[in-house]
Structure formats: C-alpha cells, structure tokens
C-alpha cells in the first residue's frame, strides 16, 4: 500500500470512507512527516495535539457513518496569513510577534466545518511580500526538490513557500495559500504541485492578514487538479463579512472535471513571450499547446496588448494598498511594541524592528506613490492601466475560452543565487500579476522539468468565475504531462 503521506487528498478521502485507515493514523503519518522534514522549515507553528484531537473527532463521525463531511479527517496545513482562533498567527513577521487572534478566518472556518484537520501554520514571505520565501522572519523555506549530485538548496518560490513545500514533501495532504501577484501559482510551479488562484471575491478575505486588498485572493495548493477542485469547493463561499465577496454560487468543481475539451478555444497571448523567458519553458509552452490540440482544443494566437505594463502597475498598486494596510502594525494594540519616549518614537522603533527589509521597501514605495504631487503620476495612472489590462482580458475572452501561458519565466533558483536587485526578483511575477490585476482565475499545473530536474508549470487563465473550466483544462494537461509519474522516475533514479 502507498504510504499515507503519498496519497492525494481525494485518495485519502476515499481511503477513510472505505476504512482502509483511520483519520488518526492518517494524521499521525503526517505529523511524523512534519518532524522528518523539519529542515525544510515549512511550518512556523506545528499543532500536532490539535490535529490528533480533530482527527479523533473525525474518526468518531466516520465510525457512526453519519452524513460525512467532504473533508472529514483530512489533515491539511494553513498558510500563516490566515487568522486561526487562539492559534498563533504571524504573517511571518516579527511585528505580529506572538499574536493569537480571537477570531477565525472564513476560509479556515469553512475547512474545519467540512471536517478538515489542522496540522499547523505554514511559512511564507513576510506579509506575503516576496517570490522566494526568503523574506520570512522565521527563516527561508527550503524546497524539497534537489538536483542530482548537487547540494544546492532551492527556494520553493513565494510567498506561499511553506504551503507548497509541505504538499511537495508530503507533510500535508493539501494546504491553503494566498495569491496577490502570483503567490500561489509561482511557488506551485517551482514545487511541482497544483496551485489555483480563484476569481477575486470567490474566497472571503475575512480574517486573512491583508497585503493588497484589491488583489489578495485565497486558494488551494494540492498534489493534483482533482484535489484543487475539492479544496476550492470548500474554501469558496459568499461571506457577508467581506463586502468584496462574490454572491455567485459555488459549483461542485470536481464534477466539472470531464476531461473533455474538444472544440474549446485556447488563446496563446503573444505578449507573454517575455524577455528572459527560459528556452526550456518556451519549449514546454509549445508542448502544452500540442497536448491541448491533441485533446481536441482549438489553438488561437491572441493579443493582450497592455501586458508589458502589468508588472510596473502591480508594483505601484500593491505597495500603495500595503502601505495603508500595514499602518495598523504600530505597537499600540497588539503584536510587537518597542517603547519610545514619544508616540512617534514608539512607532519608529516598533516598525523599524518589527518589519523586514522587503516589507519596509514596499511601504516606502506605496507611501511615495500615494503622496501629494505623485498620486496622479503613479497611483491614478496605474489604476487606469489596470482597467486597460482588465479590458484586454475581456476582449480576449470574447474570442477564446481559456488562455495558456507558462507560470514563471524561469525555474526555481538556489538559495544564495537569487537576484540581488529587487526589480529582477519582481520579474518572477511577470506572468502571474495580470490575472490579479484583472481579478480572473489562474491555475498552475506542473508539466515538465528543466534538464537539471527542477519542475516547471503551465498556467491556465479563464474568465471570472470559470474556475471549473480552467480546472478541466488543467486536468487534461495533467494527464498528458504525466508529471507525477516522471517525477517518481526521477526520484527513484537518484
């Protein structure tokens, strides 16, 4: 029998229902895996006691054969950006210190209500600001992926670095992430797993530590597409506590995985052949097109003319909102406080010590672009371009059903070899930010490897609230790519 930590979420669900193992056994296996892989630094806070207690409760329900909840007894990890009641929530920042929320985020509440088991809180870039997980105050996460005969440690990507590392290493069946500019899809591609950023408004933002409110969206990180469909069904809901939450009904995404995409029109945006695109990724993109074509889809080149402005637009709007969202971390009511002689000194000392370098940089950029005299040139202009980018997609989706692109311009880089200037680092997000700016859903599916053996992903973008459609295309790609099988071969050969 396959090891319990190698099961997918859906396989584990079926195993529990068929009494092949208990929720406590399943949870215990994952707790052991967490201990075994602690060097990856995926978890900031481990909650084994809570996990076993929840698993026990699930076993009781499973024994009674009551109407089973969809995630009954399935152990998962939560990005440490989601507030969890009475459980430390850090946002990977020193400024939140030992903060224990008195409330539960809507997304995590939905998961617990569905019977999921909490293994712990997962590492991330500080306040989700980063593409490498190197900015965490709790240290970097190390990717479980290695190159044969090479000691270099690779980044898992970010900001949901702990979330992808846990899934890839088998220390959680699935995890939650958040995606503001690619923070689910980029690390999913780096770690060879599936990551879905839903439509803006699909999952409630209530109780998620805010980075950039108009872009932030929670989504699942999973071992395969079916798991992502199952997770999203539970995570998504209309939440009256979030004024930006969508009222559109949540379908059963798993049922939409037909594998049939014949006649589906796939758009290939020419502007995504960006400078610095790794030739291996370019080749994978071409391969992806072929896979979909052989599955009966029609391929069509399209234009998203404002693509080149997406990255600069994102790096104006996201820091602007962040500079305001992070003003509340002032040492007055919760989290870290470094006392000062005056109120201003208290602010200065607390924020100087509490925030890391990247967070400070973004607060500075954001403050600058909102300042009198610069607002029109930066923030306002960026808002206008954002509208144009949205229109690009609206136009494109009149012609095609989904859009296929690579997820990232490069594969994961080794820790210590990361770009030293922030702008080059920001280039990591170039293929993912447009979806956030447009509010549309995007899915990253692991599809291939570099010749060194590091994972590469393909991204499928769809119109708002068409997660079911992109999941189905992802399902087809997944079957064509045979990524898991190749990975297994790769691993057994090393």
């Amino acid at each position, binding site marked *: 029998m396959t090891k319990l930590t190698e099961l997918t979420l859906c396989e584990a669900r079926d195993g529990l229902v068929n009494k092949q193992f208990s929720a406590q056994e399943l949870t215990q296996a994952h707790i052991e895996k967490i201990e075994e892989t602690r060097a990856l630094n995926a978890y900031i806070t481990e909650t084994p006691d809570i996990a076993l207690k929840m698993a026990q409760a699930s076993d009781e329900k499973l024994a009674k054969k009551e109407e089973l909840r969809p995630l009954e007894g399935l152990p998962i990890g939560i990005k440490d950006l989601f507030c969890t009641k009475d459980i430390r929530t850090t946002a990977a920042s020193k400024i939140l210190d030992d903060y224990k929320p008195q409330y539960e985020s809507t997304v995590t509440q939905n998961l617990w209500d569905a019977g999921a088991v909490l293994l712990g809180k997962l590492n991330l870039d500080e306040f989700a600001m980063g593409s490498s997980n190197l900015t965490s105050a709790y240290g970097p996460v190390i990717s479980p992926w290695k190159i044969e005969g090479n000691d270099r440690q690779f980044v898992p990507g970010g900001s949901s670095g702990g979330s992808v590392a846990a899934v890839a290493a088998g220390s959680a069946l699935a995890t939650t992430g958040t995606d503001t500019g690619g923070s689910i899809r980029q690390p999913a591609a780096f770690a060879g797993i599936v990551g879905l950023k839903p439509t803006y408004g699909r999952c409630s933002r209530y109780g998620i530590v805010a980075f950039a409110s108009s872009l932030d969206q929670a989504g699942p990180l999973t071992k395969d597409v079916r798991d992502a469909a199952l997770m999203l069904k539970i995570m998504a809901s209309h939440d009256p506590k979030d004024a930006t939450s969508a009222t559109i009904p949540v379908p059963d995404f798993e049922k939409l995985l037909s594998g049939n995409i014949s006649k589906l029109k796939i758009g290939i945006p020419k502007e995504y052949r960006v400078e610095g695109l790794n030739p291996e990724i370019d080749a994978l993109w071409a391969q992806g097109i072929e896979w979909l074509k052989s599955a009966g889809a029609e391929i069509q080149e399209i234009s998203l003319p404002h693509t080149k402005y997406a990255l600069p637009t994102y790096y104006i709007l996201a820091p602007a909102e962040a*500079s305001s969202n992070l003003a509340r971390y002032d040492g007055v009511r919760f989290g870290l406080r470094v006392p000062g002689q005056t109120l201003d000194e208290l602010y200065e000392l607390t924020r100087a010590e509490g925030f890391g370098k990247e967070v400070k940089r973004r607060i500075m950029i954001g403050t600058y672009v909102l300042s009198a005299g610069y607002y029109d040139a930066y923030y306002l202009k960026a808002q206008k371009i954002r509208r144009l980018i949205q229109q690009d997609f609206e136009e494109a989706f009149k012609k095609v059903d989904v859009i296929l692109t690579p997820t990232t311009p490069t594969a994961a880089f080794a820790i210590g070899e990361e770009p030293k200037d922030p702008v080059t680092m920001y280039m990591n997000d170039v293929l993912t930010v447009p979806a956030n700016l447009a509010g549309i859903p995007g899915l990253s599916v692991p599809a291939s490897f570099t010749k060194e053996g590091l994972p590469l992903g393909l991204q499928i973008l769809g119109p708002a609230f068409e997660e079911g459609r992109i999941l189905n295309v992802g399902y087809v790609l997944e079957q064509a790519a045979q990524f898991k099988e190749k990975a297994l071969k790769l691993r057994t050969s090393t």
Partner: protein
Amino acid sequence: MSEKNNYIQGKTGPWEVVIGLEVHAQITSKAKLFSGASTVFGGDPNTQVSFIDAGFPGMLPLINNFCVEQAIKTGFGLNAQINKISIFDRKNYFYADLPQGYQISQHLYPIVGKGYLEIELEDGTVKRINITRLHLEQDAGKSIHDQHPNKSYIDLNRSGIALMEIVSEPDIRSVEEAQAYIKKLRGLLRYLGTCDGNMEQGSLRADVNVSLRRPGEDYGTRAEIKNVNSVRFMGQAITYEIQRQMEILENGGQIDQETRLFDASKGITRSMRNKENAHDYRYFPDPDLPPLVLSDEEIERIRALLPELPDAKKARFIRDYQLSAYDAGVLSSELETVSYFETALKHLKEANEKSIKQLANWIIGELFAALNRDSLLIEASKVSPQSLAELINFIYEGTISGRLAKDIFTEMWETGEHPDKIINAKGLVQVSDEGEIATVIEKILNENQDKVMEYQSGKDKLFGFFVGQVMKVMQGKGNPTIINKVLLEKLKS
C-alpha cells in the same frame, strides 16, 4: 435676501469677515458605520469596540445601511443633491487613537452634493448659506493624557462611530450668521432624527474657517479653528480670530494658513499646526469597500420617510393658524418646542385662530419665562402641554379670566396639578351670574355716589374705576364681559 454689509471698521479701513463651517455631526444610529459595535455614549472605556473598530489583522469594514439612510435624509433636509454613486476613501495618518492607521471617509465622491440652508437673522432678513457637500466618515477613538504622568490611555468606544461632515460654502459674513447657521443646522438634524445635536457630548462639533478681506476683494488666507463645540464658543472663537487677524493685517503682516485650537478657558485661539506641517493624507479609494451605489427606488423610499421640516412647518403655522412670522419661527425651530406646541394643540377643545394664538402667546410668554427662571428645557417643563391646553380651554370658555389664569399657571408650575383641580380647590371659577354681579355693582355704586355723578356728567374714564372696584370685591372672579354689560346698564339708569 440680505444685502446689508457687516463690515468691521479697522484703523486702516473696513474689513469683511469670510466664514465657512465644516460641521461634524454624529449620526444617530445604534451601531457604528462599519461594525455592529454599540454607539451609546458614556460606556466604560473600550467596552464598545469590535475587532473591526480596533483595526485588528484581517478585519474588514461593512457598511451600515442605516447610517447611509440617515445621511440621505440629512441631504434632503439640506435641499441637496443625493449622489447615486459615492466612494469611500482612506485618509491615512498615524495616531494612537486611529487604530487602522487611516480614517475611512469620502474624499472625491461624497454621498450628498450641493445644497443650501436658509438662516433667519434677528432683523428678520433671510439669508441662504450654500452647502458644498455632505460625506460619511468614521470617527477616531479618544486619547486620554491626564491619567498617568508619562503614558496616554486610549478609549476606542468612539472609534468607528458614523459621522456626517457637512461643509458650507464660505458664505457666512458675521458671528451672528455663523451662530444662526449652526443653530439652524442643529435644529434640522434633530428634526430629522439623524443627529442628536448634543454639542457637549461632542455629537456636533464644527471646524470654523475664518479669513478677512477688504470689501470686494478676493478671499484672504484663512485659519481653521478645530473642534468648536458650542454656539457660544463659536462666537468667542470667531470674534477673537477677527481681532487677531485684523491686527496682523493692519500692521502689514500676513495670515498663516494654519490649524488653530480654541482655548475655551482663555477665550483665545492658538496655533496647532501650520501648512508646512500639514498632513499628507494620501487619500485613495478603500479597496475593502465597493462604491456605494443607490437606486432611484432606494432614494425615493427614504425621501418618503422624511418628517415635515422646520421651514415647511413655519410656513404652515403662518398659513393655517395665522401666527405671526416671529411666533411661527419660535414655535417651529426646535423639535421639542414644536412637539410641545403640537401636543397642546391636540388638547384644545376648540382649535381656532383665537385659541391657537392664545396658546402660542402662553408658550412664548409665560411658559418660556418660567423655563428660563428655573433653567429648564421645554421637554422638562413642569406644566405639561395637556395641562396648558386645559388652562387655555378654561380661558376660552370664560370659566376663568386671563388675570386669574396667570395665578393658576403659577400654581400649576409649582405643584404640577391640572388646572381644574386648582380652580375647584380654590373656588376660582369665574362668576358669570348676572344677579350676583348686579348685587355687587349696586353696592359699589351706592358707596360711590359722587363718582357716579361725575361719570354721568361726562367723565367716562371712571368706568374703569368701577370695574376695578367690582373685581376687587369679587376677588377677580367676576366675568369681565358680564361686569361691563351690567355696569353699563346700571350707570345709564
């Protein structure tokens, strides 16, 4: 419209003061603007705070639709345009009692646009003060600096409470106009039930912008006096500010554009921060709140909820009750006075021009005098509107004379009794029996034969003397109409 000027004579010539008001009115609502926390005044510190109001991580604001309705009602009261789309912005600044690090306000697209308010001045002229806008915003908490030698305490009960900021055009030209404006606005808000107008508790406070100019010239540089919280202080603050600015200008100086505070204990204003230190609020649309979109149906539904407003009420009192403009104005300007008057009106046995005029006179005369004497508000009057109406009924029916009524009113004020009890207990019912009155008259005439002779020889003025004598004997209870009639007959014979 008033065209008279209010120029102030300086040493170097006349000056005109230009005033604009930004009034912050706390919306009457059980819950805060973006959370369900209570808004009751006077709770123990930090007992009426939700995680939203305290700016905790991951908390999101949710608009309180009742507060929106209140703002729209107020907009109608200000004869203003209601904007079908308005946008909430974040006004960013750091302060210990501002938990989110920003105040949610409406910057470029307020919920209510241009309107006006008509004020009446003492000389009876009416002046229109234009309103620029009304927008919704949340209040900050309170910093308490005097509880500890080197610490400040923060009370967040007020944090997140809904405010309406009502901005006037710089149309105000004197202290009197400023005070008339704030009083009129306060009355209107109380009528509408959208703000309790309690200036002492801070439910209504004004930022006063004051500048001077030579008549006919462009506006001068203004100083803004923050958080003035009474009508009297407003007068003092403006008066002080006019003198201060005039002195600077007449000595060739320049006014700094700055924010000033009014020090009520000294009656002066002093500088708080100048333009260089002014905040850069970095306004931008709040991404947590979608634009506020109102449908025509919603706006019309709220319009239908409006009560009769002070100006309309005044016009109706003049038209239907034939009250003078002055009386109608006094009776309609304050919600409590109107309520007293209209309740009393319902208890008049016969409401006609005469009895209503009598009621108005009694409220504005005797009742107001008694309230002033005891420093009471009309809602705490010791004579209820029903009782006063009963008293008017007795006068109207001729049961008691006007003179006696004043004594009875005094008794009512002191004891809280209904007038009928007092009248019965003291036997104060007016005597209208002709026989009884005739007996008294005959006695008086007998005792004053000489005066009767004088009267009959043409000294008409003596008629009043006889009436007085009769009233004296009858202890004021004689019906004056009957006395006059019988006396005239007796003197003729």
